[in-house]
């Protein structure tokens, strides 16, 4: 995987190009002064303590939930949910 992936491939959006407006925002970041303490994540203390993890159990969904999930599926044929053909590259 040494080839460079372009933003349209990374984003799965046909013909996508980098935006000039957004580049202006990024330039501000490039030119900003950062602190040297390398203290990434001091702000993001959202990790959960091991004692506080939720139980690792399988919860069965109610029937109405399952029905709506099926209803949302874009394509169905003869009772099967249909996805696009997957190709090998």
């Amino acid at each position, binding site marked *: 995987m040494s080839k460079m992936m372009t*933003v349209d491939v990374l984003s799965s959006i046909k013909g996508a190009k980098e935006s000039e407006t957004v580049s202006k*925002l*990024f330039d501000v970041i490039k030119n900003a002064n950062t602190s040297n303490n390398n203290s990434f994540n001091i702000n993001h203390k959202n990790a959960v303590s091991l004692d506080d993890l939720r139980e690792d159990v399988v919860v069965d969904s109610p029937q109405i939930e399952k029905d709506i999930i099926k209803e949302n599926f874009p394509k169905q044929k003869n009772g099967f949910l249909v996805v696009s053909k997957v*190709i090998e590259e």
Partner: protein
Amino acid sequence: MESQIHKIHQQLVNKEISCTALVQEKLELLKQNTHNTVNSLLDTKALELAQKVDAKIANGEEIGLLEGIPFGIKDVYMVQGTYTTASSDLLKKYKSSYTATAIQKLLDAGAIPLVKENCDSFGHGSSSENTIFGAVKNAVNPNLVGGGSSGGSAVNVAKDYTVFSIGGDTGGSIRQPAGYNNVYGLKPTYGRISRYGIMAYASSTDCVGPIAKSIEDIRIVLNVMSGKDVKDQTTYASETISEEAVLNADEIKTVGYFKNFIENDAIDAQVKADFLASIEKIKAKGIEVKELDFFESDTLVSTYYTLAMAETASNLSRLDGTNYGNRIEGDNLKDTYSITRSDNFSEETKRRIVGGNQVLSQGFSDEIYLKGLNLRDQISENFEKDFKEVAIILSPVTPQTPPKIGDSLKDPLAMYLSDAYTVGFSLGQLPTLTIPKGTETGLQITAAKNNDELVLKFANFLKDTI
């Protein structure tokens, strides 16, 4: 205290009005959709619930404070069985299979959902024009934007179509439309209310919050929705805020404001003058006011958008039309992904996804994304330092008054920069309330993390001061 919820509750209990008539009246108003605030009406369910409330009252049973109170929901929240479109083509026929925790708590308290409300698609915007349902019109002047991204919610509250609405705030999306439409809007401390069931935009700043016409109503709804939730492990347990606690602001002795927000060329002259006049009135009440140093607006906006775009690129990668959404078939799976996404996402959403993937890709992530995270840490440290000196930070909500419909879409950079005063508090994950006082687009009151009560206290104090 002034409260629409208390007032309606009393009218219901005293049998001055019936819940069915109340809900019908609001639904009639919403049906006209004069301000493009409505994505879908929940009329059948709402009327069914209203009849149950009326039956309870007729039987002499007691009803809870929120029971029978009609409210609106930004169309990014899962409510089982309802269309949840995020105002996008991709999800225009998507139905929620489950209900968001915050909304479920309101339903459990008996509040009646009337409407899924128009907003910027996936929260991507500051004007509620980036939507397939038509630009939301401002409640005060329909030629202006309703603000965003929770524009439909703020306008519905301002026009009394809903008693309160639930918005979502990632970088200002509750506070700015509240300011543009002269109502109250709270972004609570990050993690106070569960995000389970809100469509993720930028997960590290996404917040659920109420929009209402009084501080008391904000307090009531905030209390009901708050609390730890195993389904969102960033949530924390918080204390209920009492009505009495909000009435006394004696403990607030020092207030600060960011000098560079006010002393620059980007701020409207009237907004600046009104803000400074408000500061003088606060000083006259014996409160010390300190000028504080803060990051430049362009640094705040760039840091926020860099991180938010990276997070939204990741969050929205699941939207490929495979399991749900408006799939458009291509020659193979990858082709199907890219056609579906190209044709169904708006220009603004695509701009943010592409920007996000750009900063997360090799060669850019050190230079931009990691540097953005470092800046965010510095911003948070700055807040921690400030809140050792002051109890409250006061700021305008926006540098300018609402733009005309159509103007923001032409100039995305101007739209990003219009978020200059709101995004910093999002990055800091701080509780911030917009009040419809002080300047044409209101004032923001911010306190230290987990101090939402202090924000409400100061809001109540300002109600009588300015």
